[in-house]
């Protein structure tokens, strides 16, 4: 298996753009990624594009915006891990030696999707979706268990949102650049008790792109290539509404796989970008990723260690909560953020001396399987 590097990263604007097509948003991100590594469109040999809603030859439609055509293009859907899946697809092609340079795209137009303005339901034939299960209702039920079992309070959940909104203020590309207090978050509109509006990621249109290549090509373009140390993707087991809904068996398994593949210890990670679609979720994911001992996620949050400037900054980009969450774009976007920090180009939100970073995504609901039907982790290093 060959070593793979990320040499180009790009993001479109994130926000609500009902008049812009997914192709136009995707094209903006790809153009930025090409400009970032200064390679011409004709050098791209393979493309994977992820999109969740209304997908129909998205890769081809995006690529034609920037002069990439007539090559192998693959479209994928994998809920919130779609972007991670596209990135991993390109990584596999290059690691296996099939191609030397490839493009991963994640794009979503949430404001024009069929679920615009609704709480995100599972797949349309899903029984529990008809019975009122939505992403926020699941995380609200998880939140109630966190309160019952671990002594979490709604103010703890709000604290995650305060942190990530503060981070978003330092990111020029964030959808929301506004500070919020714990009180403002608690007093925002209730969505599913105890989850309030400002504890949920917004609906976002946007795209992200990454250009990957083998090390020979990488060295021709940069003196500081960022290497992909681990690429993992795993789907959930038959553990529907599992014994303890606060733990993610698939999230824990995929973390172990990633650390093993990268040959690094959780202690070695300098920053984490993760799926914080709901504020309470981030606390649980600290534990899956072994950033702290099991059940100690709340302590880690309250200690301030996961803020920018703390021991292990989590979601320095602002996360899905402030940066925004165009579903399939987020898996690529989180990797782009890690790359920026590893290059030392993250500006005001830079993690000092970052050498190893982790990007995680988790998501999807299918009746009969554990919630978080897909989990993916990439570990990158300079």
């Amino acid at each position, binding site marked *: 298996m060959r070593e793979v590097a990320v040499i180009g990263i790009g993001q479109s604007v994130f926000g609500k753009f009902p008049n812009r097509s997914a192709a136009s948003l995707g094209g903006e991100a790809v153009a930025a990624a090409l400009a970032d590594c200064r390679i011409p469109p004709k050098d791209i040999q393979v493309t994977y594009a992820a999109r969740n809603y209304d997908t129909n030859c998205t890769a081809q439609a995006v690529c034609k915006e920037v002069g990439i055509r007539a090559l192998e293009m693959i479209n994928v859907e994998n809920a919130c891990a779609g972007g991670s899946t596209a990135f991993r697809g390109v990584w596999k092609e290059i690691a296996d030696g099939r191609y030397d340079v490839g493009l991963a795209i994640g794009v979503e137009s949430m404001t024009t999707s069929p679920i615009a303005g*609704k*709480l995100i339901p599972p797949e349309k034939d899903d*029984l529990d979706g008809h*019975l*009122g299960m939505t992403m*926020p209702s699941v995380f609200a*039920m998880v939140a*109630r268990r966190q309160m019952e079992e671990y002594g979490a309070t709604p103010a703890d959940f709000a604290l995650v949102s305060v942190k990530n909104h503060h981070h978003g203020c330092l990111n020029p590309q964030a959808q929301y650049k506004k500070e919020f207090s714990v009180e403002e978050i608690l007093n925002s509109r209730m969505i599913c008790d*105890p989850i309030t509006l400002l504890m949920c990621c917004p609906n976002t249109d946007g795209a992200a792109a990454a250009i990957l290549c083998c090390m020979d090509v990488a060295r021709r373009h940069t003196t500081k290539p960022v290497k992909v140390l681990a690429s993992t993707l795993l789907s959930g087991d038959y553990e529907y509404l599992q014994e303890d809904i606060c733990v993610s068996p698939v999230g824990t398994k995929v973390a172990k796989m990633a650390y093993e593949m990268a040959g690094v210890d959780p202690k070695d990670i300098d920053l984490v970008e993760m799926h914080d679609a709901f504020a309470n979720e981030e606390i649980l994911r600290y534990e899956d990723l072994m950033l702290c001992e099991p059940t100690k996620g709340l302590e880690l949050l309250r200690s301030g260690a996961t803020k920018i400037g703390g021991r292990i900054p989590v979601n320095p980009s602002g996360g899905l909560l402030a940066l925004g969450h165009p579903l399939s774009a987020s898996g690529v976007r989180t990797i782009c953020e890690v790359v920026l920090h590893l290059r030392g180009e993250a500006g005001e939100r830079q993690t000092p001396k970052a050498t190893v970073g982790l990007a995680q995504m988790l998501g999807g609901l299918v009746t009969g399987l554990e919630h978080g039907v897909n989990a993916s982790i990439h570990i990158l290093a300079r």
Partner: protein
Amino acid sequence: MVDAVIVREGLFDDAEGGRLLGNKCASCGKVYFPKASFCFSCFGTNVEEVALSKRGKLYSYTIGRMPSTHFQPPYAVGLVDLPEGVRVFAPLKLTEADTFRIGMDMAVVIEELWQEDGKLIIGYKFKPA
């Protein structure tokens, strides 16, 4: 007279005032709701229908304050643990008092869930027992 249709076949019957129907693995005894076509635990294929207990305990819940596919807010949904070792996701009957708490006893009721194209859609809910 409005037509009534059930939300999905095979989930419940009207014996004993309405009860949920699951199935049980003949090899390892694990019980499923909705019914599993084979055992997800031991992969045994010999599964037989069983009626589930009408009462269980509330594992968690939430009150929806935004519309879901069929419900207008406020509506309650929750997870109920039945003695057979099955956790059921279901709408909860929202009472005036709205006093759900984790661990409380819940009982199944079969009744109208929503209306669609002039039909009543019948399914299961839980209410405080």
